[in-house]
């Protein structure tokens, strides 16, 4: 089912595989990749072209285990869910893109960007799940599932950007035209067996054995014209107008096994054929003022959108119209050179997605069912940011600090209802009172005598998130507090050593479960050393040690000490060639683990991932320009 965002842009199409085609740290990858690059400039550098082609084949296999705890208002109904998953995926990707730029004269330019990507993806996944009551470990459900998919996804995109400086100084016009086209088709099999228990005794059993096909296409066009008119030597007005068109279609069919044993019996409950057309007009107006001591940039975009959704199976048509606002204001005050305050506000409207209002029947995961809410209102998010920074070159002191405050009116949250056999039914609802605040300070200074650089940092974030669990309002307050220290000594071409340490305290408390507040400490130590020896030799070593405290939900520590080192020699004038031997994760301690703590749900996901490995590398910088290797601490004043 495709979903559309507030601007009418189609956001992807969820598919059965659940894999985005990239290696993200889970499992073991095998990659084969290669590419070509060409670029050239001619006609007195007025014309330039840049072409790239890349081919990639990726295979990823892996296993993971997810342990979760669902906290419900009625503590006797809270349950643990343990899931084991295995996957075997592969993807073949061909990608080509090119950029052509031409400068017609000193005032007119055109930039054309064209690209295309062809993807073939094959996935296979299995999972075994079991849910047990927290209070006495009685089983409430178990499930076995297997899915496989085979599909193609091809997309083509282009952008034409035309810019012109008009006669009057500061008067400019730019026009952007971007068409995009995407088609996809895939076939797959879904098998799942779900067993449900009441008071420990089997009560319900479901088997799903289906063949699924899906085809889709998205065509979108984005155009925007921007006109800047100077109204004084230091101020100007910027007006823009944009049109966005999105036309998409998605046809999904599920087939059950018929009497003959073939998958040719159409299951209408889990089949859909939708087309969605959206049209948005977006005018905007901004004011800009640039003075020596301060700068102002303020204005707003407004979006007028119309949605037209056709259900081709039920032969119905739904339309919606709405208006979105995007005000923003930006103010900078320069106290002195490299010493400024920045203040920023922006607001944006988010419309509920069609999936939240009226979801399509989906049996991919029988333990998670989505229900629609036709009364959903759009949410409006306000974001304030205040930053102060200074950079004192002669005193070797610098400071970077900021506060961010974000609150949302009518935020779209969820109401989860867990039935007696452990199936979770979710509905989107509006809530008021969501906010998040974060503050950070980063202060650097130098201890002159021993020539050591220090950096102190502190980071605080606090959030409040509202949701409904079994129709009870659940307020979750969570906080993250970090303190960090960095110390380093650098002597050009001799030595570069540093040590970094940080400590974090995390806590989260849900109102529906007063006893269950989750809190834990984690520490991180990171020493780093580079030694530059005679004969252009270099030794590098770094260690990253993470310590996570045990909590009631996660009763195993996840302490990891990752030690990497390499030894290499530089050749050629300017150190342009480096040959090195490196060892990663020497102590073989890398663990795949992520933790998620929020509202009424805590989970830990452990997975297999790349561990200790060795590499022999050759790095050659053959670009024509430049003679020196990049400076470690080189700086330029950028205002």
């Amino acid at each position, binding site marked *: 089912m495709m979903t559309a965002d507030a601007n009418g842009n189609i956001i992807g199409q969820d598919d059965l595989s659940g894999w985005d085609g990239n290696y993200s740290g889970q499992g073991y990858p095998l990659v084969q990749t290669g590419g070509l690059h060409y670029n050239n400039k001619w006609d007195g550098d007025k014309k330039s072209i840049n072409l790239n082609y890349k081919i990639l084949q990726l295979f990823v296999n892996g296993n993971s285990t997810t342990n979760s705890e669902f906290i419900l208002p009625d503590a006797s109904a809270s349950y643990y869910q343990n899931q084991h998953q295995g996957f075997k995926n592969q993807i073949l990707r061909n990608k080509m893109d090119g950029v052509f730029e031409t400068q017609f004269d000193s005032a007119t330019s055109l930039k054309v960007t064209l690209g295309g990507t062809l993807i073939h993806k094959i996935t296979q996944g299995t999972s075994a799940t079991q849910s047990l009551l927290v209070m006495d470990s009685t089983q409430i459900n178990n499930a076995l599932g297997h899915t496989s998919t085979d599909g193609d996804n091809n997309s083509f995109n282009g952008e034409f950007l035309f810019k012109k400086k008009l006669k009057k100084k500061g008067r400019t016009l730019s026009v952007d035209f971007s068409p995009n086209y995407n088609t996809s088709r895939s076939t797959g099999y879904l098998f799942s067996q779900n067993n449900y228990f009441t008071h420990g005794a089997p009560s319900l059993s479901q088997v799903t054995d289906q063949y699924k096909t899906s085809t889709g296409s998205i065509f979108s066009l984005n155009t925007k014209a921007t006109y800047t008119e100077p109204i004084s*030597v*230091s101020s100007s007005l910027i007006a823009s107008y944009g049109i966005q068109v999105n036309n998409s279609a998605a046809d999904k069919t599920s087939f059950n096994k018929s009497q003959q044993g073939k998958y040719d019996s159409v299951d209408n409950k889990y089949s859909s054929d939708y087309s969605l057309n959206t049209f948005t007009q977006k005018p905007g107006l901004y004011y800009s003022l*640039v*003075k*020596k001591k301060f*700068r102002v940039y303020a204005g707003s975009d407004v979006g007028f959108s119309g949605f037209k959704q056709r259900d081709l199976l039920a032969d119905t048509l739904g339309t919606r119209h709405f208006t979105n606002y995007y005000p923003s204001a930006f103010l900078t005050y320069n106290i*002195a*050179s*490299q*010493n400024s305050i920045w203040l920023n506000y922006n607001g944006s409207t988010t419309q509920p997605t069609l999936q939240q209002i009226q979801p399509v029947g989906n049996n991919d995961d029988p333990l998670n069912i989505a229900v629609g809410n036709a009364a959903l209102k759009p949410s409006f998010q306000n974001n304030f940011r205040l930053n102060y920074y*200074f*950079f*004192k*070159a*002669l*005193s*070797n002191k610098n400071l970077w600090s900021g506060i961010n405050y974000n609150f949302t009116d009518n935020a779209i949250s969820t109401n989860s209802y867990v039935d007696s056999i452990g199936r979770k039914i979710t509905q989107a609802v509006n809530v008021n009172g969501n906010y998040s605040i974060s503050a950070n300070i980063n202060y650097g200074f130098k201890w002159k005598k021993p020539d050591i650089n220090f950096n102190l940092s502190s980071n605080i974030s606090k959030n409040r998130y509202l949701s409904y669990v079994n129709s009870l309002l659940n307020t979750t307050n969570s906080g993250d507090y970090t303190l960090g220290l960095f110390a380093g000594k*650098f002597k*050009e071409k001799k030595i570069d050593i540093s040590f970094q340490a940080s400590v974090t305290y995390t806590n989260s408390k849900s109102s529906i479960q007063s006893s269950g507040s989750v809190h834990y400490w984690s520490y991180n130590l990171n020493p780093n050393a580079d030694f530059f020896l005679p004969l252009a030799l270099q030794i590098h070593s770094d260690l990253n040690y993470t310590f996570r405290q045990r909590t009631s939900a996660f009763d195993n520590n996840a302490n990891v000490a990752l030690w990497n080192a390499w030894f290499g020699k530089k050749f050629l004038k300017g150190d342009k060639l480096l040959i090195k031997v490196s060892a990663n994760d020497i102590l073989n301690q890398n663990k795949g683990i992520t933790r998620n703590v929020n509202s009424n749900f805590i989970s830990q996901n452990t997975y297999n991932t790349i561990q200790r490995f060795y590499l022999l590398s050759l790095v050659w910088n053959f*670009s024509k*320009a*430049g*003679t*020196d290797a*990049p*400076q470690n*601490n*080189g*700086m*330029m*004043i*950028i*205002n």
Partner: protein
Amino acid sequence: MKVCSILITCICLLTGKLAIGQPPLFITHGQIEFEYKVNLYSQMEGDNDEGWKEYVKKNLPQFKSTYFKLTFDQNKTLYEPGKENPDNNKLWMGEGVADENVVYSDLVLRQSVSQKKAFEKVFLVKDSIRNIQWKITGETRKIAGFECRRANAVIMDSIYVVAFYCDEITTPGGPESFSGLPGMILGVAMPHEHVTWFATKLSLQDVKPADLRQPSRGKPINNAALKENLKESLKDWGKYANKYVKQIML
């Protein structure tokens, strides 16, 4: 009689013309506006990041102009920031370290007081005027309507300087710390540093002693100590340190 009166009228008109139309032969006081121009693209020479250089060239103008005014009488000069250039506020790079210099020079006592802003600090540099070994050439050029003669020199051991002075303005001074030629310096170029100072106009005006007051803000220091201070603070900056030290020590 008639011929006599016509003759007298003619002579009077001629002398009148001579008296009103021609400027004074030697100028001893007034105010000169200088345009200090930096070639921003050339400041990046020696950088090996072609992509960054391309990006800067696309998004920044090549030259940055800052205006200064030089008020002078027979023996003293005061060089300070002049009218604001609003275009400079829009630049996101290329902030100069010499953009707010105030230099007071007493050409008789050979002493100068300079108020120099270096990054976050302001220094009040009191020292003797730099002795420049000029080599005067035969080349001439017109600047701000004045005929100027070229002179070359090397300062601070390695910086090559070309200056144009005009002997119609008798004060032996010039912009920044440039002085010591038999006339006012109306143009300076440092070809390898890609910066120039050129006079744009001269206004003949009365100059009171109050117009030539010494600057007073900043931490008192002399040239040698300032150089030490800068080198020590910027020693981690590698080759960039030299560039900034040169600009500040000028």
